[in-house]
C-alpha cells in the first residue's frame, strides 16, 4: 500500500508571502523520513502541501509538483478530498472529535466518507486501535468520549483514526511535542511498527527523536526571518547526524545555532 512521494520545484505561499521555495526531494515508501529545522523554516507548511491541507488555510497556494507514485497531486482534475484519503495526517495537538465516543472517533473516517459495511466497522476499529497500541487500554470503554483519555492516549487515538481509512502515506506534524517522555516512547515504538505498512513523514523539533525513529532526515533552514524556507539537504539519518555534507546542518545538529 505504501507509495513513494516525489516532490519537484515546490513553492508555497500564504497570500503574497512565500513560505517555502523550490523544494525537491524523494520520500521512499515503507520508511520514516524526518524533517528537522528551526521554527518558521516551513517544515509544517511543506508537510501540509503533501496532502493538500496547505490550501485549507485562507490564501494558501502552491506551485510545483508532488508526485504520488507518478500521479501529480496538484494536476488538473485531482480532487483534494481523494488526496487526503490517500495521505493521512496526525497533528501536533491531539484533536479527537469531542462529540464522539472512542469507537466513533476511530470509525469517523469511514463513516463520514460514507463507504463502509456495518459488519466491517467493528473489525476496522479493533484493528486500527491495535495498530495504534491502544486497544488494551480502551477496549472496555469504547463508548466513552475520546476526550476523557490522557494526552498520549488521545494522540494514539488520532493515529488510530488516521490509519483506519488505510492511507498510503502518514504525515505527522510534531506528534509528540505535547506529550511526556513515556507517551513519546509509545508513539515512537508505534512509528517503528507502522513503517512496515505506510510511508511515514514526521516533522520534529527533537533531533534525538529524528535520530531514533527515522531512516532519512531532511534539514530545512531559512536565510533570515521573512525569507522563504529552503531544503538544505536530505540524506540517510546516520549520515546527517555523523557527517553531513553541508556546514549549516552540522552547525544546527551540534547546537551551534537554532
Amino acid at each position: 500500500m505504501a507509495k513513494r512521494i516525489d516532490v519537484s520545484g515546490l513553492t508555497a505561499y500564504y497570500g503574497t508571502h512565500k513560505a517555502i521555495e523550490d523544494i525537491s526531494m524523494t520520500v521512499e515508501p515503507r520508511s520514516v523520513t524526518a524533517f528537522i529545522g528551526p521554527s518558521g523554516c516551513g517544515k509544517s507548511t511543506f508537510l501540509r502541501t503533501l496532502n493538500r491541507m496547505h490550501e485549507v488555510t485562507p490564501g494558501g497556494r502552491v506551485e510545483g509538483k508532488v508526485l504520488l507514485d507518478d500521479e501529480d497531486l496538484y494536476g488538473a482534475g485531482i480532487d483534494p478530498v481523494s488526496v487526503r484519503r490517500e495521505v493521512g495526517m496526525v497533528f501536533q495537538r491531539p484533536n479527537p472529535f469531542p462529540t464522539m465516543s472512542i469507537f466513533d472517533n476511530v470509525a469517523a473516517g469511514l463513516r463520514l466518507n460514507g463507504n463502509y459495511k456495518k459488519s466491517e466497522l467493528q473489525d476496522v476499529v479493533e484493528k486500527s486501535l491495535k495498530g495504534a497500541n491502544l486497544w488494551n487500554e480502551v477496549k472496555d470503554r469504547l463508548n466513552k468520549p475520546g476526550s476523557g483519555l490522557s494526552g498520549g492516549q488521545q494522540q494514539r487515538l488520532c493515529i488510530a483514526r488516521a490509519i483506519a481509512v488505510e492511507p498510503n502515506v502518514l504525515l505527522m506534524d510534531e506528534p509528540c511535542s505535547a506529550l511526556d517522555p513515556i507517551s513519546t516512547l509509545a508513539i515512537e515504538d508505534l512509528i517503528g511498527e507502522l513503517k512496515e505498512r505506510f510511508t511515514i513523514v514526521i516533522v520534529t523539533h527533537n533531533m534525538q527523536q529524528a535520530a531514533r525513529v527515522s531512516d532519512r532526515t531532511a534539514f530545512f533552514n531559512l536565510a533570515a526571518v521573512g525569507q522563504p524556507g529552503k531544503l538544505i539537504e536530505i540524506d540517510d539519518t546516520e549520515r546527517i547526524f555523523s557527517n553531513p555534507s553541508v556546514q549549516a546542518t552540522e552547525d544546527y545538529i551540534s547546537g551551534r545555532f537554532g
Partner: protein
Amino acid sequence: MSTVIDKRPSTLRGARLPKWSPYAIAAGSAAVAIGVGTAADLASRVQWGLIAGLLFIISTYVIAARVEGRRQAKDRIATCLVWVAFLLAVVPLVSLIWVTVERGVKVLDVYFLTHSMGVVADTEVGGGIYAAIIGSLEQVGLATLIGAPIGVLTAIYLVEYGRGNLSRAITFFVDVMTGIPSIVAGLFILSLMLMWDMQPFGFAGSLALAILMMPVIVRSTEEMLKLVPNELREASLALGVPKWRTILKVVLPTSIGGITTGIMLAVARIAGETAPVLLLVFGNPFINNNPFEGAQASLPLYIYQQYANSAGSGAAYDRAWAASLTLIAFVMILNLVARGIARWKAPKTGR
C-alpha cells in the same frame, strides 16, 4: 540558651477591619439617616435610603482608609459599587415577577387557559386566552420554521465559506437588521399585504417575526461556530472527509448546544413582540386555528387589548395580568428547554 522571640511586625500582614464592621457601619448609617430624616421631616422614604447609602459609602471609605490603608479602602468602595449595581439590576426584576405573579394568579386557572373570549365583553368577568395561546404558538412556530434555518445557514456561510465582499456585505446587513424596530418590520409586511389587498392573518405576523429573529440567530450561531476549534475541521478534512460533511458531522454537532440556545433566545424575544402582531394579525376573540386565513389572537396582543379596551373594568385587568404571567412562564419554559438541550448535547468530558 534562650529562645529569642522575634516580634517584628510582618510586612505581609496589615491591619484589617473585623468581619462585622460592614454591618456595624450599615446599622450606624441607617440610624443616622433615620435621625436626619425625622429631624428634617423628609417625607419620602427613598430620600432616607439614599442618605443611608451615601453615609455608608463615605464612612466605609473613611474608616477603611484610616485602619487598613487607601488601597483596601478603594477595594471596599469597589465592592460597594458592585453590590449597588447588582441590587439595581435585581430589584426591578424581582418586583416585576412578584407583581405579575401576585396579580396574575387571580384568574389563572384551567378554565382561563382552555377558553376564549368569544362573546364575553371585555368589561365582564370570564373568558380566557385559549385563542391567544393557539395564535402565539402558531405564529411563533411558523416564524421559527422560517427564521431558524435561514439564520443558521447564513451563519454557516459566513463562518465556513464567506470570503471577501459578499460576506462583508452580509455581515453589515445583518447588523443593520438587528437594529430594525419591530414596528418597521410590521409596516414592511403590511405594505406588501396592502399591495395584494389582503386582510390580516396569522402568517403575515410570522413573516414579520421571522425578519426580527433572523439577525439574532445569525449573530449567535456565528459566535458558536467560531468557537469550534479549527483543529477539528482540519482533523476531519485530513481524513478525506468533504467540507460539507465536515460541517454537518463535526462542526454542527460540536456547537449544537450553543446554536439551540441562541435559537431559543430569539424565539423568546419574538414571543413578546406586540407591534407587528397588532398591525398584521389584528386580534380575534374567537378561536382561529388557521394561521393562513383570518385574524388571529396572540398573547402580547391580548394583553395590550385587554388593557386598552378595559374601560376601567377590573376583570379585564386581571385577565391581562394572567396572560402576562402565562407569557413569562412560556418564555421561561423555552429557556429551560434550551438549557436542557445545551447540557444534553454539550461535548462530553467524562472518563
